[in-house]
């Protein structure tokens, strides 16, 4: 059950999207999101959707992975759709039953909102599925490095991030193991009320914490043994450098925004 978490999971590959600099991916993603919020009407939304699907196809992300990633936010999407359908009052009434009124405008807004939400999440998948977490934190570190001048611990923060990301699968595996161990001794995680279940979590959390602290201690020793001494004088295996495809990506992002503004004129 715990293995299903895909948010922030990286699928290695060798496509144009994979090769892009993480900083340009981040910037283009922000451009795309800006475009998403400026989109008006079906042509613009349709265009944004087409752009996203094309990018997904180029990066060879499996549709199944996208759907799996969307599952956790399904409830939020449904809620948004329902709220918009029932609470937005327009002029063209489609359906009325006492005080329940559904209008065309409400349906439209609901569709747009749902599309916007889905595309918003999926475009972040495009970033996290094609960028190794380390490259991503690297990119963030580089983008935020001017903040080092005002004594912000940018390197330390990115190191913490990447170690956290590295440890997630290990700790999930460990949780599964402890769970099985406790279950085999008669622990019950599935039945009972909220309080009973919360209490049942305790024998899971405590061993997990103890082992996490032990791991942290060992990892620190191993890092020191490999000459880790903070961010000073540290170099990189893969140095981030903007290349032709990055400038092409910026241009692409700018074109998307321009196209969205243009297509907004044809909104119904």
């Amino acid at each position: 059950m715990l293995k299903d978490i895909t948010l922030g999971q990286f699928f290695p590959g060798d496509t144009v999207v994979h090769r892009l600099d993480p900083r340009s991916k981040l910037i283009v993603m922000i451009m795309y999101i800006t475009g998403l919020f400026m989109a008006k009407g079906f042509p613009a939304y349709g265009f944004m959707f087409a752009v996203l699907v094309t990018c997904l196809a180029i990066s060879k992300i499996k549709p199944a992975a996208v759907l799996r990633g969307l599952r956790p936010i399904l409830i939020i999407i449904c809620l948004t759709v329902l709220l918009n359908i029932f609470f937005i009052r327009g002029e063209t009434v489609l359906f009325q039953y006492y005080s329940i009124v559904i209008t065309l405008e409400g349906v439209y807004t609901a569709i747009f909102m749902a599309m916007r939400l889905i595309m918003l999440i999926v475009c972040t998948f495009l970033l996290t599925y094609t960028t190794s977490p380390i490259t991503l934190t690297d990119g963030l570190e580089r983008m935020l490095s001017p903040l080092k001048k005002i004594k912000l611990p940018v390197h330390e923060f990115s190191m913490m991030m990447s170690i956290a990301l590295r440890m997630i699968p290990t700790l999930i595996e460990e949780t599964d193991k402890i769970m099985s161990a406790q279950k085999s001794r008669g622990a019950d995680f599935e039945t009972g009320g909220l309080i009973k279940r919360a209490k049942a979590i305790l024998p899971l959390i405590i061993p997990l914490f103890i082992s996490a602290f032990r791991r942290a201690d060992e990892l620190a020793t191993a890092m020191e043994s490999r000459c880790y001494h903070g961010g000073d004088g540290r170099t990189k295996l893969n140095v981030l450098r903007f290349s032709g495809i990055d400038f092409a990506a910026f241009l692409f992002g700018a074109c998307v925004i321009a196209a969205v503004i243009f297509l907004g004129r044809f909104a119904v």
Partner: protein
Amino acid sequence: MRGTDIMESIIKTENLVFSYYSQDNPVQKTVLNNINLEIEKGTFVAVIGHNGSGKTTLAKHFNAILLPEGGCVYVNNMDTSNEELILEIRRNTGMVFQNPDNQIVATIVEEDVAFAPENLGYPSDEIRRRVDEALKIVGMYEYRRHAPHLLSGGQKQRIAIAGVLAMRPECIVFDEPTAMLDPHGRESIIKIMGDLRDNYGVTVVLITHHMDEAVNADRIIVMSDGDIVMDGTPKEIFRNIDSLRNTGLDIPETSLLLHDLKNDGFDISLDALTVDECAKTIFESLQSSNRGN
């Protein structure tokens, strides 16, 4: 102080003393008791001892993870208590630990192997060269773009070894590297350790309580309660079954068998270490006794 014999040794301890203080017990526990030891360059040395004999504590002194309480530790003639030399000492003496999961820092194999040279500030083309070289030595080059958590325990441990090799150390200390591995993974690590000594001239220090892993070493150091109780070649050590038993260690079954045969009056050499050697020794002994009759 700088005689030729010192130049030859890579690790040298002089009257090394170390003790732990615990909060609930005000009495300090001495873990290392006046250790004098020299490890020569290019040798394969196994340090064996039961749990709590101080062998891991000793190993952690070899790359300045722990600093001596009394006495000195020298790595390539560098005093480990000199804080300015600490990076050079750790680059010289790499360390591989028991649990591969707790040594891997990155989420991509090659980025993990690059961790040490990145810390040392090498230019990126040099890092690339070292990473590729290290991964090829441990036979994991084709996995360089993989995520470590999807690999087997033995493969992860090989990545950890590559991560140390990327520093091009003269000496690698292995602290029970096979304790968490399946037999197959164990075999691959033992093979790599031998390979490093034979083909790359790396000094290998293996901390273990598996006697059969120590058999391949050039020299075995037996520790018990913070002291070195035995020191010699594997043949010398395993001939001395009674003193080994006193330290609470398991004796290899081959040595045990030969020892029992000798006690029962067979004229047999006690030098065989591997199963094949043992079989050969018994066979020869039987043949010669047949001839005698």
